C-alpha cells in the first residue's frame, strides 16, 4: 500500500518554522508521506499541493495569532476545488492572546476543521488521530 499523504504548512504571513520542521520529521518517521509547503503559505497553495499529490489530509499551522483571519473559507475553497471532504487539521497558537481553548476549538470546528489542537501539542497526538481518522 502507498504511504498515506498529507500536506503540511504554516498559513498566512506566518514564518514560525520550527514546529513545522518537527512535524515534518515526526510524521515522516511515523510512515506518512509529508508534502511540506513550509511557511508563508496561502490557502491556494495548500489546496493545490493536496490536489497534485492526492493527499488525504491537510495540516495547517498558525502560530502568530492571525489564524482566525487566515483560516476562514479554507473548507469552502476545498469544496470548490473538488476536495471538499479532505481531512483538515489545524494547530499552533491559533488566536491572539491567552484564551480558553474550548471556544477557540469550537470556532475553528465551525469553520470546517475536523480537529483543532491547542498550543504545545506534541506530534504523537495528531499522528494517532490521523491514523484513526484514516482507519490505519
Amino acid at each position: 500500500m502507498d504511504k498515506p499523504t498529507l500536506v503540511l504548512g504554516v498559513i498566512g504571513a506566518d514564518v514560525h518554522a520550527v514546529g513545522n520542521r518537527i512535524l515534518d520529521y515526526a510524521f515522516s518517521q511515523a510512515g506518512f508521506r509529508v508534502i511540506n509547503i513550509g511557511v508563508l503559505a496561502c490557502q491556494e497553495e495548500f489546496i493545490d499541493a493536496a490536489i497534485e499529490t492526492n493527499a488525504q489530509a491537510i495540516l495547517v499551522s498558525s502560530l502568530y495569532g492571525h489564524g482566525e483571519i487566515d483560516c476562514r473559507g479554507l473548507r469552502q475553497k476545498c469544496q470548490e476545488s473538488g476536495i471538499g471532504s479532505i481531512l483538515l487539521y489545524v494547530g499552533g497558537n491559533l488566536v491572539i492572546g491567552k484564551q480558553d481553548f474550548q471556544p477557540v476549538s469550537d470556532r475553528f470546528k465551525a469553520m470546517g476543521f475536523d480537529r483543532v489542537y491547542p498550543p504545545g501539542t506534541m506530534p504523537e497526538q495528531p499522528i494517532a488521530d490521523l491514523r484513526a481518522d484514516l482507519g490505519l
Partner: protein
Amino acid sequence: MELRNRKLDAEDFWQERKEVLTQWASGAEVDFDEAVVYQKSLPKHKIFAEKLKLGKEQGLTFAQPRAGVALVSEHIELLRYLQDEGGADFLPTTIDSYTRQNRYAEAQNGIGESRTMGRSMLNGFPAVNHGVKACRQIVESVQLPVQVRHGTPDARLLAEIALAGGFTDFEGGGISYNIPYAKEVPLETTIRYWQYVDRLVGLYAERGVVINREPFGPLTGTLVPPCISHAVAVIEALLAVEQGVTSLTLGYGQCGNLLQDAAAVHTLTQLAEEYLAKLGYGPVMLTTVFHQWMGGFPQDEAKAYGVIAWGAATAALAKANKVIVKTPHEALGIPTKEANAAGIRATKQLLNMLKDQRLPRTQELQAEEDIILAETRAILDKVLELGEGDVALGAVRGFQAGIIDVPFAPSRFNAGKILPARDHSGAVRMLDFGNLPFNNEIRDFHRAAIAERGKAESRDPSFQMVIDDIYAIGKGMLVGRPR
C-alpha cells in the same frame, strides 16, 4: 545594479524615495525637513541613543518589553501601562505581521475587524496604515524613548513613517529581518532595502538627529550558536555604518548556559569594533541587547517566570546594556498588558538585585570567549574573502555557500545545513557543521562537547537530540535529556 557595501548615491536615494512614499497613502504625510525639526524637538529623555549612552556610562542594564496592538488609543494605553505599572526603561512598538509583509490592505482589514470585534485582531501595531501623526501621538503620550520592533524584510516605508513619527530607534537589518522572517526574498534584495533604511538614518544623523539602530540578534531564537548571530550582527553593523549610522545596539538571544551567554555578550561589541576598525570605519556608539530566551517557553506561568528571571540574571551578570523581556504568557499568546508588565517587574527585580554584582573572569569564561571569537572571525574572514573585501557581497555569497547558516530558518536562501545541540552543561554547540568554515581545532571542541553529553545520556547524538533540546525549556529543563 550590483549590490555593494557602498553609501547609496544621493540622487538614486531620493529617486527611490519618491516611489517608496507612494506604496501606501500615508507616505504622503512624510516631509523629511519637517521630520528633522520634529525629532529635534524631542526632549533628551525620549531619545534612545541618549539614554543608552547614560546607561552605558553607569553600567546599567535597561529593561524593554515587546508590545503592540491594532488601534492607536489601545496601543497608547498599553504603552502607558508598561511604563507606569511595569517600570519599563524603554518602550516598544511592535508591528503586526501583515505590515511586516507589506500587506497594508490586509492590515487595514485587521484594523477594521479589531474595531468591530472590540479586541485586537492584529498581532501588532500597523504603523504604516496609521501614519505619521498617529506615531507622534504615541511618542507624545509616553515619557520614555520608543523603538519600532518588527521583522520586516522591506521596511523602507515603515522606516520613513516611523522616523518622521518621532520614534528614535529602529530594529532590524537586511539579513536578520530576512532569513528568520521570509521564505522567498533574496538576500540581495533585503540588504539593498536596508541600505535604504540605514541611509535614511544616516541622513537624519547628518542633520544632527541620532537614531539608534538595532540589528535583530536572536534570528530564529532557537538554538542559534553565538558565532552565527555575532557574524550577522557584525555584518549588519558594517552595512549600517557605511550608510552613516552612528549609534548601534547589537543583539544576542539567550542560549541558557550562563558562561556561554556572558561570553557572547562580552565578545559582541569587541568583534564589531574589531571589524569596523579593520574596514576603516571611525568609532560609533555601540551597545548590547540581550534577549531573554527566544525559543519555546513553558506554558505554566510560574515556570515561565523562572525562565524570565534566569534571562534577567544572565543579562545583569553579563552587563548587557539592555534586556528584552518575555512574559508569563509567552507560550500561549500575545500577553495582556498585565502579564507584560509582570514580566518587566520580575526582570527589574533581578536587574536591581544584581546591578552591582559581576561574574568573575575565569579561565572557563575566557575559553568560551575565545571559542566565540575564533568561530566568528573564521566566518567573517571567509565572508570578506568571498566578497572580495565587500561585506554586502560577501554576505550574499556566504549564505549561498552555507558559510553563514541559521538553524531552523524559513528562508530558502539559507543553507539550513547546520544542526545545533546542547552540550552536557547546556551550552549550544554544533552537531553538524554544514559548511561553516571551521578549522579542526574548533570542530574537535564541538565534537568532544557533544560526545560528552551523548555519553552521559548513553545515546548517539542525532536529530532526536536536537528535537529534545527544542522542547527542553518548554518542558522545564535546559538540556533535552532522553525521555
